[in-house]
Structure formats: C-alpha cells, structure tokens
C-alpha cells in the first residue's frame, strides 16, 4: 500500500463514522492525518490519533467546530505549522437531524446549514491559497444521496444539494491550478447518523429497495475516498460519486421480484 504516501490530509468530523474510517484508510495508504471533532472528548480523539500513528504516519488533533471561521483558521494554521503543507481536504463533518419542515425551527435550519455547508465553504476557502501555491491538491466533499432525492431533514438534504453544486464551482476554480474537487454521495450507511433507518420494519424496507440488498459500511466509503484522492483519479474533477448499492438509479417498479 502507499497510494497516498506522505500526503497531508485534513479530515473534518473524523472522530467517528465515515470520517473516522476515512482517517484510518488514508493512514494505511501512508498519509499523515489531521483529526478534527466538534463535540468529541479530547481523550477520544487522542486515542484515535494513537491508533493511526501505529500505522507509521504522523497525526495532529485540532478540536473545534469548523462551521466557525476562527476554528478553521486555527485548523489550517496548525496543519501548516506541523506539516508545512496540505494536500487533501476532506469536508466530512455533518449533522442530520430528522424533523419535518413544519416543526423545524429557524435555529435548527441555520445550524444544519452552518455545520454541513458553511464548514465546507470555510475549509475550502482557507486551504485553497496553500494548494494554489503548491499547484496541486484535492478537496473531497461528503454529500448524500438525499441531495437528489430529498428526505426527512429538508435542511440536511438542501445542504447536501448545495454541496454538490459547490463541488462543481470549486472544480472550476481549482482546475487551472491543478486542484481537483470531487464529492461522494453515500446512500444508507451503517453509522450512528443513519440509525433511525435501523428501526424494526424500516430496515427491511430500505434494504429491499437497494439493489445490493444491504446497507453500506463506512469503510466502503473510505476506499472510494482513497481512490478519488489518489493519482489514479487524476483526470476526475467535478464528479459526484454515488455509493449506495445502486439505490439512486433503481426504480422499484417490480421490486417484489428482487426480494
């Protein structure tokens, strides 16, 4: 292995779920990892850092909410102080409260848009000047299948749709400098975020409309992320990769036949 040898990677929201899996897979490929968590305890992040360092790479922990500019400034500055460069940014942090539009408060709307979308803007904005100087870089944004389909949590789905468009704009702006921007849109993945989908009855239904017949695992998102950030994907930019076992294109006109 070594597809990302000595790359410096910032992964926002990397204390658990998909972000944690990405951090572990990137470390396995030889990348140095900057970990970030919003509400996670320092001990938990440090323990993860130890686990990652066991793979022979270096780490840095920067706690804080990257939906706030001064936290992002600190995150990027500490990364540069420690590693003197930043090769890859993974905009992963996100929240997904399940609430109807009628019951959604203005504050809840703002919070989801801030944490999911504004963080993506702020982190991208602040790493871009450094990637431009290096004349290389990859920014990978975590979108969602709900960007296209909608879903309960209209603020979440809207923030993810905006991330898709933002990714394309970023691809345009970065391309002249050799900077690529891509997104991954996961479908149902076995994480804490998706646990509402595991309710009895619901899980079986969701599985029945996924061609591969199962939920994905965080590691399966991480492997796609490795590919998209590696040199094997050097002619791919502006692309949104849906990883959902086929859910997005399957129109279950005869789905009873599949089960």
């Amino acid at each position: 292995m070594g597809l990302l040898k000595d790359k410096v990677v910032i992964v926002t929201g990397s204390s658990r779920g998909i972000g944690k899996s990405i951090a572990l897979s990137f470390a396995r490929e030889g990348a140095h990892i900057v970990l970030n968590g919003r509400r996670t305890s320092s001990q938990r992040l440090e323990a993860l850092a130890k686990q990652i360092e066991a793979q022979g790479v270096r780490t840095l922990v920067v706690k804080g909410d990257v939906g706030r500019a001064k936290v992002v400034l600190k995150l990027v500055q500490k990364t540069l102080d420690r590693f003197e460069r930043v090769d890859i940014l993974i905009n992963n942090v996100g929240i997904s409260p399940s609430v109807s539009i009628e019951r959604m408060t203005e504050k809840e709307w703002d919070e989801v848009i801030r944490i999911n979308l504004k963080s993506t803007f702020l982190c991208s904005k602040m790493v871009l000047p450094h990637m431009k100087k290096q004349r290389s870089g990859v920014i990978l944004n975590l979108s969602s299948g709900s960007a296209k389909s909608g879903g309960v949590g209209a603020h979440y789905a809207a923030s993810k749709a905006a991330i898709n468009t933002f990714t394309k704009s970023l691809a345009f702006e970065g391309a002249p400098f050799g900077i690529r921007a891509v997104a991954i849109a996961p479908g149902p993945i076995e994480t804490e975020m998706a646990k509402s989908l595991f309710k009895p009855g619901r899980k079986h239904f969701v599985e029945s409309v996924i061609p591969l017949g199962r939920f994905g695992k965080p590691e399966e998102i991480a492997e796609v992320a490795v590919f998209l950030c590696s040199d094997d994907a050097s002619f791919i930019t502006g692309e949104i990769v849906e990883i959902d076992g086929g859910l997005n294109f399957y129109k279950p006109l005869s789905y009873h036949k599949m089960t």
Partner: protein
Amino acid sequence: MDRLKGKVAVITGGGRGIGQGIALRFGQEGAKVVVVDIIGENAEETAQRIRKVHGEAVGLRGDVSKRSDVESLVTEALAVFGRIDILVNNAGIGGSKTCLDTSEEEWDRMLAINLKSVFLCCKRVIPEMMKIGKGKIVNIASLYGIAGSVHTAAYCSSKAGIINFTRQLAVDYSPHHIYVNAISPGLIGTEMTRGKLKDPETLNYLLRFIPLGRHGIPADIAGAALFLASEDSDFVTGHNLVVDGGESVRLE
C-alpha cells in the same frame, strides 16, 4: 502492486488506446489478462507487453459484435485461465455523422459494435461469474452518452444505451454479487481521437472546454477501471463514473 492478484480479466478492444491502457495496468496489478481485439496482432502485442514485465496474458482475435466469436473467445479464455472474474467491455468505434447522413447500415454497424457487443459479452460471461459467486463488469461508455453533440447520432445513442444497460444489469445481478459500472471518458488521446488532436488549433479549441486544461490519456481511464474492478468499489454498482477533466461539469 497486486490489487487484482489472481483475478482473470477479459478486456475487449484491448489492442490499443484505452483498452490497451486498461490491459497493461491490470497486468501490472497482478491480473491474468485476456486481451481481445478485432486486430489479432494488436491483441498479441498488448499481451506480450504484459508478459514481458511479469504478468500472465493471452491475446485473442475476435469480433465481439458476433455471437459465435464471443462464444469461442470465452471458451478459449476459460481453457487458458479457468475462470473469469472481470469483464471490461471496451471495444467500440467512433463516427461522426448527423442523423440524416447516417445510413441504416452505418447505424446498425455502430450499434452492433458498441452496444450489442456489451450485451453479447455480458450474456456469455455473467453465468461464469455466477459460478464463482462474484464478478466485476466495467463498461466503457462516453461523455457522448450523457450529452448530445454535433454529428454523432449513432455514437451518442450507442453510448447512452451502455449507460442504462449498466444500471439495468446492476439491478438484476446484484443478488449474485456481480457489480456493473460504466466509465464515461471525456477527451482522451487515442487512435480514435488522433485526427482531432493533431491540429494545434482544434486541440486548443477543445481544451477550452476542459477545466483541467489537458486531454486525458489511456492511463487516466485505466486508474478508474482498476478501482471499479477491485474490491475497493464493493458498494458501488450501476454508477457511471465520468473521467473527463471536468468537461461535463457544465452540462448539468
């Protein structure tokens, strides 16, 4: 590198261009490669290049738009390597004509070589994959399969057909752990595009549409094909992966 170690991969149109790039890369990654091409010497040459480095490969001549050829190609591949884990449907031709200028024969030929060949190869190879209990199919479509363009009536139609055939196969064969994905290359420097690319004025004009500011090379597609043929993509099926330097970003 051994990301496809021990896997047997059949690559149609592997004698040159994108197919050759994929074949060489798969060979480097430890796959046993069956290179199929309508020009036998080209197939053999690619196979030789793989064998020269360290890999195992055979070159076979055949026309994958003909059922009898597909049958004998697959029989021979199985005789040599015993199984088929990966199928890359890459064989295809280009063509530049409007609907009104396209003869019925030209239409039929384009659809046979570009689309029917994918159907015939899948039809013959999927049962072999079902025996193993797993398989990976990568179909080479095109940006012209998601966008219309000037003077490409039959070509656009054949490539769009590949993209939705890919989704359909993914639905039907998911229960057998057969993963089917497409790659849509943008402008790639190959024999097929050489005419366009050799004139600097045309090249500069075309590059204006590509945010990354360069045309792709077969190795760019090979990287994507490797990903879709490897276990790293085990939750990806029915996807059309666009590899175009950002050219299609403005299509949406």
